[in-house]
């Protein structure tokens, strides 16, 4: 668990424990994430997937352990970290339009007091174009479909121009067209050398979408290249005795062979 390679790990977690109301959700998590990979975080409900990425970004208090991003404590490199929160975490009736939301991605870089200028607007427009939402730039966010809202969140993260991205279920409740548009953008980011950690719910697609998988259930069950980790044995270990999931796993593994 050390980063002795010349390239330090994009993300290193040591002995991370996080709890809600004194119940541990994550317990003794160790992890070293190499750069330039598209990584899926999978595990059953309540396995601590969202908690892990929130803890990495300093949104939750840690009981123990530390997190380093590009070999530095997070506050020093906060502008190199991008975030796509869960879509349900905000009020979509909020009085802002699509452009306002995407511009928020520039705020971290701008720092306090400085206002977004013409260059930031240009960057935001380019990000909207990349997710196919430029025609909706002046639309009030309540008038978007779920898939479009998710694309706006992705565009905002793109506007952060980060090197390490945390995404909380970006595929939840989106249409097929949005799903393929999102995965195309994620792969493009990966090819640019960015590191992406994506909380994902759907096992069958997890196998085809991600380079590496992190199987999580309170602690790390397995972390490695998808081909090595996506085995019925490890998935069973992750999902425990949940029968419906087990049959899904069997199907997914069967489809692989």
């Amino acid at each position, binding site marked *: 668990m050390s980063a002795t390679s010349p390239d330090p790990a994009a993300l290193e977690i040591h002995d991370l424990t996080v709890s809600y109301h004194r119940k541990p959700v994550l317990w003794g998590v160790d992890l070293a994430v190499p750069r330039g990979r598209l990584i899926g975080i999978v595990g059953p409900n309540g396995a601590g997937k969202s908690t892990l990425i929130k803890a990495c*970004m300093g949104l939750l208090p840690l009981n123990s352990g530390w997190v380093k991003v590009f070999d530095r404590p997070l506050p020093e490199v*906060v502008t190199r970290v991008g*975030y796509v929160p869960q879509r349900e975490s905000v009020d979509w009736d*909020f009085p*802002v339009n699509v452009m306002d939301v995407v511009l928020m991605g520039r705020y971290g870089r701008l720092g306090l*007091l400085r206002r977004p200028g013409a260059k930031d607007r240009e960057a935001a427009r380019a990000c909207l174009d990349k997710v196919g939402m430029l025609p909706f730039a002046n639309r*009030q966010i309540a008038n978007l479909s779920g898939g479009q809202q998710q694309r706006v969140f992705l565009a905002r993260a793109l506007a952060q121009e980060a090197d390490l991205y945390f995404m909380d279920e970006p595929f939840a409740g989106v249409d097929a067209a949005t799903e393929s548009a999102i995965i195309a953008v994620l792969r493009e980011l990966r090819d640019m050398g960015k590191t992406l950690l994506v909380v994902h719910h759907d096992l069958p697609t997890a196998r085809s979408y991600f380079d590496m998988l992190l199987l999580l259930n309170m602690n790390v069950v397995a972390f490695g290249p998808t081909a090595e980790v996506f085995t019925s044995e490890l998935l069973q270990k992750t999902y425990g005795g949940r029968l419906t999931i087990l049959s899904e796993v069997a199907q997914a593994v069967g489809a692989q062979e």
Partner: protein
Amino acid sequence: MTKIAAITFLFLAGAAGLHAARVSDVSSTDWTGQAARFLSLRDPAVRYAAGGAVLMGVCCGVLGGFVVVRKMALMGDTLSHAVLPGVALGFLWNLSKDPVAVFIGATAAGLLGTSLVRAITHTTRLKEDAALGLVLASFFALGACLVTMIQRLPTGNKSGVDKFLFGQAAAITAGDIGLMLAVTALVLGLVFLFYKELLVVSFDGGFARASGLPVVWLDRGLMLLLAFSVVIALQAVGAVLVSAMLITPAAAAYLLTDRLHRLLALAAAFGVAAGVVGAFFSFLGHNLPTGPLMVIGASTVFTGAFLLGPRHGVIARWWRRRDRAARTRRENTLKSLYRVCEEREFAGEGVSLTELARLRRETIEDAQRLGDELARHGLATRTDGMIYFTPSGRQRAAEIVRNHRLWELYLTNSANIAADHVHEDAEKIEHVLGEEVVRELERRLNYAERDPHGRHIPSVADIHRSAGLSGEARPR
């Protein structure tokens, strides 16, 4: 319920006290004279009252905008009631209405109240709403006791402390105005400087923190500004109703706009309007308590926005629904005309009212009414007993028929719905299908020519040709 009873009691008590004050300064002028006196702003007391109302309106409106979009309305209510014991203690400090002492006492009490709410939710199983109710009631009760005590003190100038319950703009002094100016300048300056930070924190706090913004300090700063503006508004509106000046103008603005900066500006404007109107009527009524009058003013603005708002207003929505229903009715008539023409393979011109009535199983009078409606909208022309398509009417009729049959075919082919189940659905969908969706449906259905019932589906070419042809054949 008990709270309402207590408020009613206090209001009556306050009104009785004010009645005495009114008798003492009976003025010889009638109400037109009073109105002229207010509007001319000659009187310094009037100037202070009006100026105070304006400053209060701006402050409460702008910060109220944040209160409403952040769903902190109950927090605002608690904060505004929790300041009362601080007002009384500030008053007791040197037994006079010293604006600075009252300001400090009230702000401290307000912040103590909100911190208590946070402490209760963090250390017990109680949720925020219970904690808010608890703090609101206990602080206000304490404040009410202290205020009554002060009024019974034998010494000191105690005039004015009762005005903090329901507000009295006429009691605003030059010192109050100075303080209000300072707070308003602070609020507007900070909101302007930190607008982008406050926007992102209000919309998505998690994202703001992940971006490295000092979210905790921004939240605390906003709460402090909120406490400041509640306290400066006390003199004009009173502790009982000041939360309404935070919520009501901003809620009205929220119904009218979709951008935060416009919402804040509108809320400030509504706050000022409500404040000045309240001060005016208070003056007209010889110093009636201003708070209730201002809140009635704000509620009137809200009612206006609720009913008349161009997009979300009740009347606009009702109008749009009516409009849609009328369009659907016209399109259904066009469709019936098309069906009549289709039955006789488009031979001859025009459709008689009898034929239309027969197809629709309606009376001649109904058919006549529908035909006249089409004529009014330029979709058909009418002669005695006959209806003729205009080019645009003919085109729209073909489009609607195409939409209906395409949709039926799509449901039976792609969704495996039985052919006798699809009609009802198509009846609704045909009016809302956009041109793009129609093209997509045509592509997916391989430009099919027959619907599930074997009837011809008009193609794009048909539609344009039919428009042209009927134009030539149209009777002059």
